[in-house]
């Protein structure tokens, strides 16, 4: 989808065929599961738009498209309140509720709140164990009663525990049936949640809208979390459905790990999808992993920075994601495919280097140094050479980045709060 919309924008920016560009956009939106009717309406509206005098048609259409896309996907960010509260998580089977409970808990905990996860899914085998293990991994409080069949009792008991935030994970169903509505209502009457959040996976097709509407109508929801945004599904169905139902999307899940979770902002999302980098997100990630991305991009590049990059890759997800946020799409394959084994090797190699060697990689042409490092790290000389080759590739990339002066330029662009669309 991204490619197609970007193509469409390129066609437009070259002042070429507006009709053809719109067709591309239409296909792109449908392919990303945006409600077919919504897409038809959008295209009709843009085709029928009156173009102000003196404005090139393509530029005007571009701007209109950007604005309407942001609207369709939910408008500007509605920040999730960081306050003591009770949160009820709902969703169908396999939407990712339990994982999301832990991610949301981690997110709130990092902002200073004392969070407890409550296992009120008493249907699915091992749901209790799953949430408990996740809570342990994320260092969050946990409450559940093994073997208890009544979720209401679990919630009642959980509320006797001390915490700022209660996140209640509930049972899913294959579809929202009477049974589930009834159960949710009974839990709600005891919990009295400030926020009832629906969890929807990004790859859900045209039924996403129908499910969201049904949940909104039957039990009432305050917001949505869209999961699995890292797969092929682009969330078009889920995001547009929520916007249509007037329900805010607060967060998106972007990976398997607890940190792969971010606040959703349609304007930002559209910017990213059109190829405009997201500096804010990058800074946020950098802060969390204590890696200063600015440092990597500025100043002398050396092995210390290369190592920091490798570590960052592992801690905050693939470096290509990060670089993509900087608008860079050509990432050396070697960095993308950093496997566990390779990382362990590289880690050992790095640790066997002297401080001087790390800051002055040029001395590493000396075979005796290579030999020593290989012996010290329990790897082969070939491994050390590979490390150095990867380092050089990375150095080249960073130099290219710097030459472009992309960072400053991009920051300026974002500071103006607008897409770089000439009026």
């Amino acid at each position, binding site marked *: 989808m991204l490619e197609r919309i970007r193509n469409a924008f390129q066609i437009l920016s070259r002042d070429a065929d507006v009709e053809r560009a719109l067709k591309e956009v239409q*296909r792109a939106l*449908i*392919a*990303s*599961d945006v409600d*077919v009717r919504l897409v038809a309406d959008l295209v009709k509206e843009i085709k029928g738009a009156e173009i102000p005098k003196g404005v090139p048609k393509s530029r005007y259409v571009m701007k209109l498209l950007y604005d309407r896309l942001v609207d369709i996907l939910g408008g500007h960010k509605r920040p999730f309140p960081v306050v003591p509260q009770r949160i009820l998580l709902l969703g*169908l*089977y*396999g*939407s*990712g509720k*339990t994982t999301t409970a832990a991610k949301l808990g981690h997110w709130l905990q990092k902002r200073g709140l004392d969070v407890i996860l409550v296992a009120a899914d008493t249907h*699915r*085998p*091992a*749901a*209790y*164990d*799953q*949430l*408990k*293990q*996740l809570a342990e*991994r994320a260092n969050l409080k946990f409450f559940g009663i093994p073997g208890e069949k009544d979720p209401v009792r679990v919630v009642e008991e959980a509320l006797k525990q001390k915490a700022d935030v209660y996140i209640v994970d509930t049972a899913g*169903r*294959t*579809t929202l049936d009477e049974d589930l509505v009834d159960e949710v209502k009974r839990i709600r009457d005891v919990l009295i949640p400030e926020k009832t959040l629906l969890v929807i*996976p*990004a*790859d*859900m*097709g*045209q*039924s*996403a809208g*129908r*499910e969201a509407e049904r949940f909104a109508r039957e039990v009432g929801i305050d917001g949505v979390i869209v999961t*699995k945004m*890292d*797969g*092929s*599904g*682009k969330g*078009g*169905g889920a995001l547009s459905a929520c916007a249509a139902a007037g329900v805010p999307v607060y967060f998106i899940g972007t*990976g*398997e790990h607890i940190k792969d979770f971010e606040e959703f902002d349609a304007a930002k999302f559209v910017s990213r999808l059109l190829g405009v980098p997201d500096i804010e997100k990058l800074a946020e990630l950098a802060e969390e992993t204590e890696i200063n991305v600015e440092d990597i991009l500025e100043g002398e590049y050396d092995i210390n920075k290369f190592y920091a990059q490798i570590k960052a890759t592992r801690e905050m997800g693939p470096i290509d994601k990060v670089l993509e946020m900087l608008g860079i799409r050509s990432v050396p394959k070697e960095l*993308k*495919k950093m*496997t*566990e084994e390779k990382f362990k090797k590289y880690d050992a190699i790095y640790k066997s280097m002297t401080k001087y060697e790390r800051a002055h990689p040029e001395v590493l042409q000396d075979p005796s140094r290579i030999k020593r490092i290989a012996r010290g790290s329990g790897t082969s000389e070939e491994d050390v050479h590979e490390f150095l080759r990867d380092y050089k590739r990375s150095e080249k990339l960073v130099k290219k980045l710097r030459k472009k002066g992309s960072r400053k330029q991009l920051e300026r662009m974002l500071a103006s709060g607008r897409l770089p669309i000439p009026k």
Partner: protein
Amino acid sequence: MFDAFRKTLRKFSDTVATVAGTGVTIREEHVDEALDELEMSLLQADVALDVVERLRDALKEKLVGTKVRNASEIKEAIRRALEELLDLPAPKIVPPPETPYIILFVGPNGVGKTTTIAKIAHMLSKMGYRSVVSASDTFRAGSIEQTEEWARRVGARVVKHDYGADPAAVAFDAVKSAKARGEEYVLIDTAGRQETNENLMEQLRKIKRVVKPHITVFVGEAITGNALLNQIRTFDEEVGVDAVILTKLDTDARGGSAFTVTVGAGKPILFVGLGEDPDDLKPFSPKELVEMILS
């Protein structure tokens, strides 16, 4: 469900009926008109965009030149054409072509792999076959307990290691012990993964190298939209997929995803999942699916 489609069909057959009498041969322009309107309904039923176009061509090829005498014959022709498009030869897994017969299950997170495996073990056990489930999802919290609980319910044996263990090692042990005990089936459960994750794909290839499964089955959801095509294609390219199981067909899904699997990805559908009970697994029937779409 396919309201617009049904209306189109009716219009289509009406037109033909007025011309007919002695019988008429379906021509390209007949089909074109009908298919233009059909396209929207197919998209709304979650047939992937690229597949809609191929479905169009395929239907055209099958219908043009067919002789029909009346409305019901036209309907019948369309029905047959749709059925044929869904009907790809699927591998036969019962009785076990070899002992033990090893099946590897792969797919995205949350599609119902573990539940599906339990249903298959249940089905096999009703037919008198013993299966062992390899708890090779060592990543997702609670997955091992979930597998054990299901296995207990359906009477299958589980081979497990701890969380974080090498999934291939678990599978290896499962196969080895099945051989020793003469069990007929080894069902290997794996962690759900997004197809975009290179490292995790490599992990699946490793399992394949180590235990050499007889078939690899992709488990996907009928409610997945356009992403389904890419999911199956990527899993197929990365690890190889022999057949597909579509879950959650009892939900709001409109069945169009079946065309994405067969016409789009060219893979046969082995079973469909229709509910939460161990018995809610059915061999895939093109006839029933077309019925579901058209009725």
